[in-house]
């Protein structure tokens, strides 16, 4: 299969690229722009280049299309599913697996590596897989079906990532490691021990110092693994993740120089021993080292492309293998000389066994320069430490200040980012320097989102987001731009701060709030914000006279004002399930009051065209028919959309309607910074479109999957997978916490998506707070939610039972006349407001 290609025939320098992986793809993107160069790519995998770094997300529902790295440039010709078999250096041609012979002027080898599978007897049995390609993951997923136990061979970085995947598949998971510790390449003994404790606590069994001899038929499971110490382990599935080996076979056969333990030898220009052949990425060996990370590979791609363009100013001189990642929910980072092997080095270590934090820094002989670091459990300082090492910054007098907890407020010591030079690389995935970020800020990118979109910083692994934010804020401050987060001219506070003031000080009225914490009379920004805070904190009936002036008209009249000043009414139809009798009642009311009737996208019915004085009359009838308010007028929980699920659908796995009704009834009436939409699908076919909602729930064979922070509308956002395989109680518990944390901390009119994107640490942080309770807030959040649920009242029911409140539903204060200035037109059997050109000209 060939991907769309452009014309390369006019080019006078033909480049052939072997391997369409991450690095090959990056090279093609860069080289295709060089004038006079034609690029032809051969990729052996059955699909275009994809993001291998995020491969494990495939298990969490990210599709192969989502992982794809984008279409190759027009000017390149890409042959997918066609490998290169042979290089003829004399003829300067390559021969492909389809017998095609192609000439090259420059050949680029970007063949990556293959997973090393130790020579264990029985390693070829079914349900034994490596972990490198999408096809491998398909195989693992298939083997997981019907299995109960999974084993990962290899306790390194990738092995732990694979273990996480197996655990999420619901398997009892074991990690078997030959070495005495986990992640031996990156961590020292102390870090490894801490990690091991944390991993075990998460329910993954760790077996170190185990030499697997053979895999044979099992008794209770598919396989039985036998170890050199005469112990054994039964398992249904084995994943090999015991390291990688460079794919240098082509180079070897062609007589290029390769390393003793593999790898195609390259120089600073990424040239192999044949100057017409370059090698980049994981297959290349520079200075005796292989670089198994994507950033050094991208660097090589850049150098190789520059060389083609006759630009010798850039060179590859190795890369440090610092890494930061989250494994099984545990933050781990390793920087530079993590083991302290440099001569004269000394170390500082901080261990907190209660919070499970391990930090160690390695400093040079004089104690003035940082050589390396290990962080387990808390990696917030990763970016700063990495830059301190790379930029060779002089350390403070007491270097332990770098790892000791800063309890008063936290964050890096003030001014730390200022000391970084402009060349300091902040985002290593996309090689964005501090200078580039500062330049972007100067050109008007004043939010993290804007910096992201114009520099690409923090759009790779995202690990540098906190540091990017610090650079951004430091620069804004330097420019004297006041980062004004005030709610409005009346309150020098954010919504979040006001929320805390209200809750902590027990404030219940706007008068008190503005007197103590603001100035002036308030406005249409701060008043509704305060009303929503009071409602969320105290669940006071929103029609209480003291709150009346704070409400915008929709909240004031508990209906949605439309363009001609009339209102629409949306009764709650939980989960979209409605009895025929209720449907008839709705129809009768609509007919009686001549209300325009329309089905909404949230599976309810909207009745339009009511005047203020009609609202209580209509609601009295609706309440008699068993309806409740639908809160369509409020920044509140709106609908929980659902599909019919296991009740009727042949594919349904769980009762999505039942769950939707349960969720809707639980959270109805909850006031929030913005409207909240939910959906529940009965299986992964996702007919309820849960992944476009603030809270989306999808049934799977092993329980509910929870998605958060999606939305439709002007800026649609796909929701993020938050947790998988949940039972009913855990699902509800997580939603409780998630919603309350949002209510507590979001800004006014900030939807969950924007809120999450603005949280420092993003989704991972949110998970740590909500799932792992890293801030110790969970109990409080649940209690607050319980209060809101316990004190729920239908606002319309309360309104029509209260003569005083009914007073306000008058069209005119001094007349019982109705508003006869309204003009309607009948269309398709219903009435609608007249357009301007339909009005009799009468002025």
């Amino acid at each position, binding site marked *: 299969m060939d991907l769309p290609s452009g014309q390369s025939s006019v080019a006078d320098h033909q480049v052939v690229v072997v391997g369409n992986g991450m690095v090959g793809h990056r090279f093609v993107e860069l080289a295709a722009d060089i004038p006079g160069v034609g690029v032809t790519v051969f990729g052996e995998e059955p699909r275009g280049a994809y993001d291998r770094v995020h491969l494990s997300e495939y298990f969490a529902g990210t599709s192969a299309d989502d992982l794809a790295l984008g279409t190759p440039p027009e000017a390149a010709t890409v042959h997918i599913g066609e490998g290169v078999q042979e290089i003829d250096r004399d003829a300067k041609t390559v021969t492909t697996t389809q017998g095609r012979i192609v000439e090259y002027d420059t050949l680029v080898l970007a063949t990556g590596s293959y997973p090393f599978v130790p020579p264990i007897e029985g390693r070829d049995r079914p349900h034994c897989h490596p972990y490198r390609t999408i096809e491998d993951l398909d195989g693992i997923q298939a083997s997981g079906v019907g299995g109960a136990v999974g084993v990962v061979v290899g306790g390194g970085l990738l092995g732990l990532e694979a273990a996480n995947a197996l655990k999420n598949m619901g398997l009892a998971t074991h990690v078997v490691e030959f070495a005495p510790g986990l992640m031996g390449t990156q961590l020292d003994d102390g870090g490894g021990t801490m990690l091991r404790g944390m991993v075990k606590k998460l329910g993954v069994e760790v077996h170190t110092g185990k030499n697997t001899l053979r895999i044979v038929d099992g008794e209770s499971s598919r396989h039985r693994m036998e170890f050199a110490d005469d112990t054994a382990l039964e398992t249904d599935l084995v994943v090999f993740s015991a390291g990688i080996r460079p794919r240098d076979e082509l180079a070897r056969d062609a007589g290029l120089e390769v390393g003793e333990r593999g790898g195609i030898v390259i120089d600073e220009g990424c040239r192999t021993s044949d100057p017409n052949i370059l090698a980049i990425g994981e297959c290349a060996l520079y200075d005796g080292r292989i670089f198994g990370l994507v950033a050094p590979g991208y660097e090589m791609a850049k150098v190789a492309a520059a060389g083609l363009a006759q630009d010798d100013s850039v060179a590859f001189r190795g890369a440090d293998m610092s890494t930061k990642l989250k494994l099984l929910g545990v933050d781990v980072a390793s920087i530079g000389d993590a083991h302290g092997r440099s001569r004269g080095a000394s170390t500082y270590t901080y261990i907190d066994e209660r919070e499970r934090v391990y930090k160690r820094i390695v400093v040079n002989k004089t104690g003035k320069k940082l050589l390396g670091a290990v962080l387990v459990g808390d990696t917030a300082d990763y970016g700063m430490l990495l830059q301190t090492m790379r930029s060779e910054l002089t350390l403070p007098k007491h270097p332990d200040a770098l790892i000791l907890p800063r309890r008063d407020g936290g964050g890096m010591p003030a001014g730390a980012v200022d000391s970084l030079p402009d060349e300091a690389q902040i985002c290593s995935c996309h090689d964005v320097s501090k200078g580039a970020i500062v330049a972007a800020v100067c050109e008007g990118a004043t939010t993290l989102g804007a910096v992201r979109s114009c520099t690409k910083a923090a759009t790779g692994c995202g690990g540098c987001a906190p540091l990017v934010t610090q650079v951004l804020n430091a620069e804004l401050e330097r420019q004297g731009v006041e980062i004004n987060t005030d709610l409005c001219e*009346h309150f020098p506070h954010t919504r979040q701060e006001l929320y805390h003031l209200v809750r902590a000080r027990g404030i219940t009225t706007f008068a008190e709030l503005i007197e103590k914490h603001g100035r002036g*009379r308030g406005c249409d920004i701060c008043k509704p914000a305060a009303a929503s805070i009071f409602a969320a904190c105290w669940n006071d009936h929103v029609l209480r006279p003291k709150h009346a002036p704070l409400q915008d008209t929709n909240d004031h009249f508990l209906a949605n004002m439309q363009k001609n*000043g009339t209102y629409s009414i949306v009764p709650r139809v939980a989960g979209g399930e409605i009895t025929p009798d209720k449907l008839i009642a709705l129809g009768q009311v609509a007919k009686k009051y001549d209300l325009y009737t329309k089905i909404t996208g949230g599976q309810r019915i909207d009745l339009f065209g009511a005047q203020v004085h009609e609202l209580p009359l209509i609601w009295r009838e609706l309440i008699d028919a068993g309806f409740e308010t639908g809160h369509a007028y409020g920044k509140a929980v709106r609908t929980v959309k659902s599909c019919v699920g296991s009740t009727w659908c042949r594919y349904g796995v769980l009762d999505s309607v039942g769950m939707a009704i349960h969720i809707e009834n639980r959270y109805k009436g909850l006031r929030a910074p913005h409207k909240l939409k939910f959906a529940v699908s009965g299986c992964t076919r996702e007919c309820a479109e849960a992944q476009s909602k603030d809270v989306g729930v999808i049934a799977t064979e092993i329980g509910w999957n929870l998605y958060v922070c999606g939305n439709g509308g002007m800026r649609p956002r796909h929701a993020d997978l938050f947790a998988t395989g949940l039972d009913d109680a855990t699902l509800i518990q997580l939603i409780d916490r998630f919603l309350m944390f949002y209510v507590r901390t979001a800004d006014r009119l900030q939807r969950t998506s924007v809120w999450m994107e603005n949280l420092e640490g993003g989704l991972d942080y949110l998970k740590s707070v909500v799932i792992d309770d890293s801030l110790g807030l969970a109990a409080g959040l649940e209690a607050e939610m319980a209060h809101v649920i316990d004190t729920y009242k239908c606002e319309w029911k309360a309104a029509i039972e209260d003569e005083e409140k009914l007073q306000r539903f008058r069209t005119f204060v001094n*007349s019982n006349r109705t508003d006869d200035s309204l003009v309607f037109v009948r269309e398709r059997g219903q009435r609608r407001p007249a357009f301007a050109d339909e009005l009799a000209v009468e002025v």
Partner: protein
Amino acid sequence: MNASSSANAPCGPEEGETPSLQGPTADMIDWTPVCSLDALIPDVGVRALVGEEQVALFRLSGLGEVFAIDAFDPFSKAPVLSRGIVGDLNGQLVVASPIFKQHFNLETGSCLEDAAMSVRTYQTRVVAGRVEIASGLSRGNGEGR
């Protein structure tokens, strides 16, 4: 549709006289009683029918005065201004239109966002606990309707 017809009767103070009020003097005005002051919740507007005109009335907390402006929002052309949120912006007393959110000065009727737009304002007074509106006369001139 109602329209502003007798909006701009020019009744300025007579030459040489010291005006006691800006605009027409109190005894020259036709006052229409509207409702009791208690019917107005502070900072919550109501709509009144004065003749055939729809007027938005506001009583502001801490102020004795009642403010009256045309209820029609010149932007949406809907009678909604009594249903906006009141407050102050840069020291001006304002109401925000609930449709497109422009702010109107309660004392002058001018729109803060668009100097070319404004609404009529009406004089009011409170007599023996009842709110009265000056009918047929306005303090300012509605434009943009």
